């Protein structure tokens, strides 16, 4: 058991090990309006267990839009996204929320922590929302996750009392709170300096290597993308290269 596994013994494994964790089939997303805008079109993507995938491309190529679709934050105009073998097309809001809560962990570019809450409270949020662990276990796990990410002395601090790198590590701890098999990260190092950026990248790397998590990270940083195991390159909303395509 890795150091980040402790305290998560009651969180179930969400999907069968043999199936890809995320499958996007002919996914297209068009923003309606007087002039409809196509964000992504005809995306076919399959992401398996324990992959470290970079979604990269130029600004406006549809990287983040694709991540939101894979994370069920947005709905495709056509096509289908399957998470852990489950079709999501006909899921209602509550079902999608449940999948996000239990199967997916999100890390955003601007950490997106609740400003009035301490680091520990922010990490507790997804666990409290899921409600599978008793209070004491939840607090124990939140403290453990933060300590594992080098924030043991900062559990009681609010985001405005932390540095950018520390906030992003709190965001990673929050993404791991319910021990989801998939972490979706949107420019996780985009707003960090090089040192903090390296720290966060190493944490994501460890998640894949030692915890066998699947990490899908959007980045425009080519060097960062090169250090990941698989690169999916988007251009004008379409996949132009995928070095992990089978």
């Amino acid at each position, binding site marked *: 058991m890795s150091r980040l596994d402790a305290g998560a013994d009651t969180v179930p494994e969400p999907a069968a090990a043999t199936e890809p964790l995320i499958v996007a089939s002919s996914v297209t997303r068009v923003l309606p309006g007087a002039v409809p805008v196509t964000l992504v079109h005809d995306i076919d993507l399959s992401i398996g267990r324990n992959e470290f995938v970079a979604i990269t491309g130029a600004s406006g190529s549809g990287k*983040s839009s694709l991540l939101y679709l894979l994370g069920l934050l947005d709905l495709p105009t056509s096509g289908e996204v399957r998470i852990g073998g489950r079709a999501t097309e006909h899921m209602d809001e509550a079902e999608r929320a*449940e999948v996000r*809560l239990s199967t997916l962990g999100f890390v*955003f570019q*601007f950490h*997106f*922590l609740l*400003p009035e809450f301490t680091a520990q409270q922010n990490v507790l949020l997804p666990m409290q929302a899921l409600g599978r662990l008793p209070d004491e276990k939840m607090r124990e796990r939140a403290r453990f996750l933060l300590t594992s990410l080098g924030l043991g002395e900062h559990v009681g601090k609010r985001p405005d009392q932390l540095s950018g790198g520390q906030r992003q590590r709190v965001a990673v701890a*929050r993404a791991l709170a319910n021990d989801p098999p998939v972490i979706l990260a949107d420019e996780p190092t985009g707003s960090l300096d090089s040192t903090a950026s390296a720290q966060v990248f190493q944490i994501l790397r460890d998640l894949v290597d030692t915890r066998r998590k699947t990490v899908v990270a959007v980045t425009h940083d080519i060097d960062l993308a090169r250090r990941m195991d698989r690169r999916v390159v988007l251009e004008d909303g379409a996949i132009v290269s995928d070095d992990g395509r089978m």
Partner: protein
Amino acid sequence: MNLVLEIALTHIRSRVRQTLVAVAGVATGVGFSIMMAALMEGSQNDFMRQLIDALPHIAISDERREATPQPAQTMFDAAEIHGLTPQARRPGIKNPMAIMASLESWIPGDVAPSTKTQGIIRYAARDVGASITGIDPHREPKVSMLATQMRQGTLQSLYRSTNAIILGDRLAEKIGARVGANITVQGSNGARIGAQVVGFFHSGVRPVDESTAYVLLKTAQVLQQQTGLVNELRVRVADAMAALDIARRIERETGYKSVAWQEAHEDLLSAFVIRNIVMYTVVGAILLVASFGTYNIISTITHEKTRDIAILKSLGLRETTVRRIFVIESLVIGLMGAVAGWVLGCTLTLALGTIEIKSPFVDSTRLPLAYSVLHYAVATAAALASSLVAGYFPARKASRLYPVDIIRGAT
């Protein structure tokens, strides 16, 4: 602590000034509604108490609801008789003592006979019209507050001399009579007697004190020139509110017109209903205005918290959970406002209680106020309901936010 409650309380705590403004709005609404309810119900209770005390709960008179037809009209159905006047009846209640005994067997209260007449009281060349009531001093204290309203003399003083009379204090003042004065009383039939003033009473109701006098039953019968006449039986029941039903039963059983105090003051009671509608409308308007304050703060919070809402929803919180957060915030503000409103309402009510009021018609030294838990409960319920409504709409709007729209905007 519950997640929803924790987030709601954190939002409230982080906006102390705005929260206090909203709480103050609700508190003002609750406080003033409590004060108004205390004042309105207090004055109503006081007025009703005076009404109930000043008059018998039920007055059984020698009248009928409908004029008595001539025997010929009831005997011959087929015949139509024109020009008949109703049958003339001898004034007074037949067998009053038997009726009293019968009523006393089932009425939860007491009955007293009286003979009422209109007359003129003459003293020192001054004539004043008065309502003269013949009473039984032994029974009277059981049906009216007259015994406690005596300022000089007692009801027993009526036995002190032949044709003794007790005057309302303002009536005595008007004619300048003192206890021991010999006055002349003339009945509506023209009978005239000399009477000695043996006491004064003060009911606190000016028209009564200015124009009412009490004599013994016998004296009133002399003035009416009819021995044994009793034209009114007065009833006081244990529960004044039950008077109406008892009066109906008495009327059914005796055939005599039996009027409960509620019927006698139907117009006033209707006025109270209108007054209460006005009161609750004003109170409702105050609370409505207060609810706009709550709406405002919840709208502001949801507007400021769109990013947090997006985060919560992206983490996996459901729409209903997000909605619940803001509804609870609204309810907490409503509850805090209600509690502050209790203190404000109680303080205002106590302050009102110290104000001295002089009315030309009734005696009152302080504003009559009613202290009731119900006022607090109703104001609180109204405040919570308005807060719930005020919070629900911004909460619903917040819960429907599409997280991607916010996240895209932020990045």
